[in-house]
């Protein structure tokens, strides 16, 4: 398992090295390929992700999902051979500006995919929009003024909570204690939950009836926060945590006074590496997610089997699926953009796209926010064969506007 991670990193490093080498060789090759305007000329696609820095645990999945689509489609999108230009957004934000500028000005990319951190979106989208290049975003989605060239494959931060709120109001026999990390993404996630939950008649068990926000990123011990849950009389917990926070929260919950109070959460708490690190402590957690690897459809079976073949039989994380969808959306849009596709034509084609057949089920982009209108699934952590997995146990609402 470790060796596969190493090879992922190596692959990423090699990809970055290759991009650097191309850049060093000068832009002559890219301009000449652009001028040779024949039938199915090769095209350049940019992919920005976190290969170093604080999000480096998340970055490779964004690259690998996209690369897997190319691997299984002869390295072609819309009938054109693709040269993928990979760039590193590092810690996000301003660091990604020169990366995006190089992609647009030197590589003349048709579109930019990926992007993990929300500050990177805020830095890159205005530049891409000014140049008319569509951004097909697979990571977090902040509020952006001009979304004319921004297309999000993941979800709006308030969506997971909004899908779980009404379900818990109906099915939990009593009040719910809500937790989240103390930063903007945490506020959005929890607001999505508390708004939908209280609207459906639910009542929070927290002090003062408001969700509790734990200091981020410095909280390593959640025991003192959890000690209040049992005394509050809550019948369930809802939380949003990712990464190290998710692992610590789950471990502390499973060994606290609150261990018999069911834990509900946004799906990231048990995605990929987090579930492995949590181990048996995560058994029984109920989550909401817009994807589950055991969805029964032809599109999902194709994706899951390709992923597990390449990565030692592992189940694909949702992030890799967003990236796979980014490639799939570009594939269809470029095909519609004619024999000599331009960024503008690709952007218009994405705008005109209807239902998208995806491993997560069919979904479509909201005409207003450019975020998926999609179904959310109820999942439970259970033993699936020899390992713990997120098993789909039901459908939640379709969310998006």
């Amino acid at each position, binding site marked *: 398992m*470790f060796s596969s*991670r*190493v090879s*992922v*990193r190596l692959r990423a490093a090699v990809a970055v090295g290759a991009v650097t080498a191309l850049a060093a060789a000068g832009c002559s090759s890219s301009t000449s390929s652009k001028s040779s305007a024949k039938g199915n000329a090769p095209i350049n696609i940019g992919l920005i992700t976190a290969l170093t820095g604080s999000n*480096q*645990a998340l970055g*490779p999945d964004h690259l690998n999902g996209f690369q897997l689509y190319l691997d299984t489609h002869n390295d072609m999108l819309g009938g054109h051979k693709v040269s993928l230009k990979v760039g590193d957004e590092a810690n996000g934000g301003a660091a990604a500006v020169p990366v995006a500028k190089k992609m647009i000005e030197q590589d003349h990319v048709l579109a930019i995919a990926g992007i993990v951190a929300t500050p990177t979106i805020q830095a890159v989208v205005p530049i891409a929009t000014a140049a008319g290049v569509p951004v097909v975003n697979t990571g977090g989605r902040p509020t952006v003024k001009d979304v004319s060239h921004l297309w999000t494959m993941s979800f709006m931060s308030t969506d997971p909570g909004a899908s779980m709120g009404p379900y818990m109001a109906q099915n939990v026999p009593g009040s719910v204690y809500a937790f989240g990390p*103390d930063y903007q993404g945490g506020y959005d996630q929890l607001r999505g939950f508390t708004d939908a939950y209280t609207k459906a008649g639910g009542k929070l068990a927290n*002090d003062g009836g408001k969700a*509790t926000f*734990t*200091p981020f*990123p*410095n*909280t*390593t*011990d959640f*025991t*003192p*926060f959890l*000690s*209040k849950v049992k*005394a509050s009389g809550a019948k369930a917990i809802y939380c949003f945590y990712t*990464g*190290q926070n998710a*692992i*610590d929260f789950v471990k502390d919950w499973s*060994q*606290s*006074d609150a*261990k018999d109070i069911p834990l509900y959460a946004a799906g990231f708490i048990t995605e*990929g*590496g*987090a579930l*492995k*690190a*949590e*181990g048996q402590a995560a058994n029984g957690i109920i989550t909401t997610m817009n994807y589950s690897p055991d969805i029964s459809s032809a599109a999902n079976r194709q994706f899951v089997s390709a992923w597990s073949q390449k990565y030692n039989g592992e189940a694909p994380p949702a992030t890799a699926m967003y990236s796979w969808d980014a490639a799939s959306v570009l594939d269809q849009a470029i095909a519609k953009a004619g024999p000599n596709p331009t960024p503008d034509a690709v952007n218009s084609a994405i705008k005109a796209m209807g239902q998208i057949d995806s491993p997560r089920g069919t979904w479509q982009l909201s005409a207003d926010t450019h975020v998926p209108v999609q179904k959310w699934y109820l999942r439970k952590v259970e033993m699936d064969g020899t390992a713990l997995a997120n098993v789909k146990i039901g459908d939640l609402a379709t969310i998006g506007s």
Partner: protein
Amino acid sequence: MGAINTHFVPALDGVAYGLLLFVAAAGLTLLFGIGGVLNIAHGTLFALGGYLAASVSDGSWSSAFLGLAVATVGGTLCGGLLAAGTLPLADRGHLPQALLTFGLSLVGADVLTTVYGTDEHPVVIPKSVNGTVQIFGHVYPTYRLMFIVVASVLALVGTYVLGRTRAGALLRAAADDREMVGAMGYAPWRVHAALCGAAGALAGLAGGLGAPIIGPGPDTADKVLMLSMVVIVLGRPGSVLGAFGAAIAVGEIETLGVSISSNWAPYLLFGLMAVALVVRTFRGSSAVGAGAAAGAHA
């Protein structure tokens, strides 16, 4: 009684967390306070210990002890490396050393993520301590209870070695007067190497012991370095008793303080640290006094 009942688990947990901080900071305070080496790579040594312990752990007691041994040896070896690097800088003050160890910590962090990847690593601890126990009607993790005992023993042994043995006396003497120790027939570089090795061993051991609580991952090194710095600044560098008091105070602030006033949770630690430093500046009080002042506010 109701209030005591609500805050019992956080108060107990504060002791466990404080002892974890003490064990984590012990190597740093030894090296900085006595050896005069400001080791920014301390957190990286802790993380290394955690990764090493995690990689051999399989849930058996023998693997748990092997993990601690491997973590300690790994920490000692890296401490030796540190000794070789910092020795030429011994007379140049803290800044060049900090720069060197900062560089080493960056290299070390990259080596660790290259070898172990960017995921958090689970440490599989023996089943008999992996569960929970009932204390006065509350559920508490068995491992943390055991950790309180082990860390207390470690603190006692450390205090004894430093204060009552010949080796400890030699280290303290080297801090006061290197040349005199040299004149007594102990080469300063050997004392320096022993100190770095011991500090590395402590950091590695702490990483191995603490891994089930602060799991080894890409953020571990920075987190441990920051908390250790807080502990040694509050407890005064080199003072074992001061570090102990400060660690317990910080532990209680982060647990009992949070449980009493969770709205203030983000500001408690650094707010009270600021108060303690200001009070100390005006009063010029002892380290133990500063620790007690912080504890009283919690």
